[in-house]
């Protein structure tokens, strides 16, 4: 979900920077680690290699699979192919939402985030494209507004409103549009994963930028603290966004159009995967892998009081989200769900405050 993260991230930038300044002011002047620091170089290396790269690689693979399944649907518009394409869309959402705990680096600066995940979909503009008769060349699709392509436009075309669409509902023009969008999604997914591992336009792979944090000549991350602050800042940003953007904005306005993934009824899954993203960054590995170096949990202290608290609050947040009935777009208007929605919001905000007030100071040292 591109649009809301960027803003909150930007709002938090001064906080993180202030923390960085404070940290560097308290530490030695040239960015070397002070005697108090618990940070090791393997913190960023492990985070990059065990969390970021596999997540983006998985995203690129699943977007490729989504594109292939949509091509197959276009060639043979059966219910089975439609189900497969929808399953591919759901599958691709998982790594993307699990990457939103680290929406920095190329995904931000190269604008891959809005290119993939702008919402809400502007259906008026979308309908105008469908009605235009223009040839949907790759160049044409690339030039469309960000809310006329990406995950959620594909979602609208694939699912209709609430997943009611059947193969017979697809006009040839819709297939043309859908396949053009998924081809673009695939290209963006490849570019995003590539930006971390390949040199492009003279820019070194972002992996190199991050993993050499604190080493001589690294202007982006002059100290290990600055890289660790980026990691914790990413966590705080997504927690803020889920609680006070993704949940609060549509709930307060009672406006289903503001709900992310509203057509596929996938909103709560998205939010939960955002929590998993936080968990992955904190634990330093994905659910099916092992950490290969220091993790944020190590910095906090494994099984320390704070670690127990963080993990308990994470679990509580995920549990609170599970208690909200899907579809979230209906729940925001249902009085019976109000308490649960507010409870989930509160749980996530509690976790956010813990990261802000207790974890961030640890990496600032």
């Amino acid at each position: 979900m591109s649009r809301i993260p960027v803003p909150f991230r930007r709002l938090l930038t001064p906080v993180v920077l202030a923390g960085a300044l404070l940290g560097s002011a308290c530490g030695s002047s040239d960015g070397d680690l002070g005697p108090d620091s618990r940070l090791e170089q393997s913190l960023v290396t492990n985070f990059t290699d065990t969390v970021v790269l596999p997540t983006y690689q998985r995203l690129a693979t699943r977007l490729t699979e989504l594109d292939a399944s949509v091509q197959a649907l276009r060639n043979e518009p059966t219910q089975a192919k439609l189900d497969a394409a929808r399953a591919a869309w759901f599958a691709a959402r998982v790594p993307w939402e699990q990457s939103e705990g680290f929406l920095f680096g190329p995904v931000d600066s190269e604008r891959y985030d809005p290119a993939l995940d702008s919402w809400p979909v502007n259906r008026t503009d979308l309908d105008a494209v469908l009605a235009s008769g223009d040839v949907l060349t790759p160049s044409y699709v690339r030039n469309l507004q960000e809310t006329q392509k990406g995950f959620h436009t594909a979602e609208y075309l694939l699912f209709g409103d609430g997943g009611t669409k059947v193969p017979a509902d697809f006009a040839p023009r819709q297939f043309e549009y859908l396949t053009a969008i998924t081809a673009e999604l695939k290209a963006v997914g490849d570019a995003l994963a590539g930006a971390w591992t390949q040199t492009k336009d003279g820019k070194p792979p972002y992996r190199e930028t991050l993993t050499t944090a604190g080493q001589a000549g690294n202007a982006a991350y002059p100290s290990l603290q600055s890289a660790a602050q980026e990691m914790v800042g990413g966590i705080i940003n997504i927690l803020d966004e889920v609680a006070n953007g993704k949940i609060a904005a549509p709930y307060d306005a009672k406006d289903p159009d503001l709900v992310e993934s509203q057509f596929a009824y996938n909103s709560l899954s998205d939010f939960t995967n955002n929590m998993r993203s936080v968990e992955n960054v904190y634990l330093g590995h994905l659910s099916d892998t092992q950490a290969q170096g220091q993790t944020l949990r190590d910095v906090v202290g494994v099984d320390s009081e704070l670690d127990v608290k963080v993990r308990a609050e994470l679990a509580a947040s995920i549990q609170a989200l599970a208690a909200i009935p899907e579809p979230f777009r209906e729940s925001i208007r249902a009085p019976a769900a109000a308490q649960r929605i507010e409870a989930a919001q509160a749980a996530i905000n509690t976790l956010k405050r813990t990261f802000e007030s207790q974890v961030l100071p640890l990496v600032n040292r």
Partner: protein
Amino acid sequence: MRAAPMTFFASRSFLMSLCAVSLLTSVPGDAQDAPPPRPPLTLDIGGYADLQFAYFNHGENQNRAGGSQRDSRMAFDTTRLVMELEAGLPEYGLKAEMEVEFEHGGTGASLELEYEEFGEYEMEVDRGGEVLVEELYLAKTLGPNVTLSVGRFYVAVGTLSEFYRPTDYLGTIRDEAETLVIPNTWDEMGLQVKWRIPWGLRLTGQVVNGLDSTGFSSQRWVGAGHQRRFELTRATDLALVVRADVTRFNGISFGASAYYGDTTRNRPKPDLVRQCEDTNPNVVAPCGYVSAPLLILDAHLSVNRGPWRAKALMLFGHLENAELVSQRNTRLSNLLDVLRSPVSDNALAMWGELGFNVAPSVGLSDAHQVVPYVRLDYADTQFKPRETLFNNPRFRRTVYTVGAAYTLRNIAVAKLDFSHRRLGSDAFRPENTVRLSTGFSY
């Protein structure tokens, strides 16, 4: 239109006093080195201000399906306060003019809700600030009819380069059409020649720095290509402006202007270069830059005769290689804070307003003007685009305005109007606005 200048001549006695002070404070040996008296200096202090009180029946976000939602909201704005100072040395035909504008009553960083980016909060450090030096130039008269200026001045395109004070136009705001597609108001640095031909023709020629194409977009066409982001203005690509105005007829002027200049070498980074095999790593762009020249043509009219007040403009613009600019812009860094939507090859803007002074008919003296008026604005920032660009009707707008403007001795002003905006498709909800503005021009 403007008040007579307040002119001060440094009197002989004042200068004598200065000399006396100088003599008293200097050591005796320096007495014979006292500087010669300064020549008479004329000073002309002026300025204008504009305050806005607006009611809207629609939400701010036009990007919603169906256009902006129904809403009922008000916004107040200290739109601008502009201070002007002209200093002249008449005996040498020299003049310096400076104009500083304070926009929205504040300076520094501001937080904006950017709906073109779908409800993002944007922390904007208003580059160059919300305090802007809009004019700062030195002018030298060359004979009675020719003036040469160097510095920062208004680009002689459209109506707003000349008629930008709240007493100059009838609406509560500057015309929406012109301010949408080109910078508002458009000032650049360079050299300017003005030649008044006695017959009643005024010719203007300018060489100024060109625009920066990273700011071009679907929403504003080249309007946000105005260089305000960085401390220095890039002028690798220059633009040429020529303008002719017929001023022979009392109270009526009309004319045309043309602007032509490239835009790609003023980008912050040399990122729009021609690709070639024979690269030389020691040269920034071994095979040159992609050329994306911008052409703007306009015809304009102004009437201020008897009870009639009118303005009209038709402006057409064409950007060569708009597709290449768009493709490159989509890959710009977030940190540059530009829209990155594709820019159209062409844009069209038209506007006109017509009013009639009824003050005499209601028994008011010449000091007052009461001018009911109508205004029409039309702008299409995606006018006849290339085939590969979706011609989005969202970027076509027509605004119908009716209102009345009151001015007292052409200094104090109060205006009220109602405008009805329609976007280029019935799928978008129309938007109504009532505005009250007040201010002064002196």
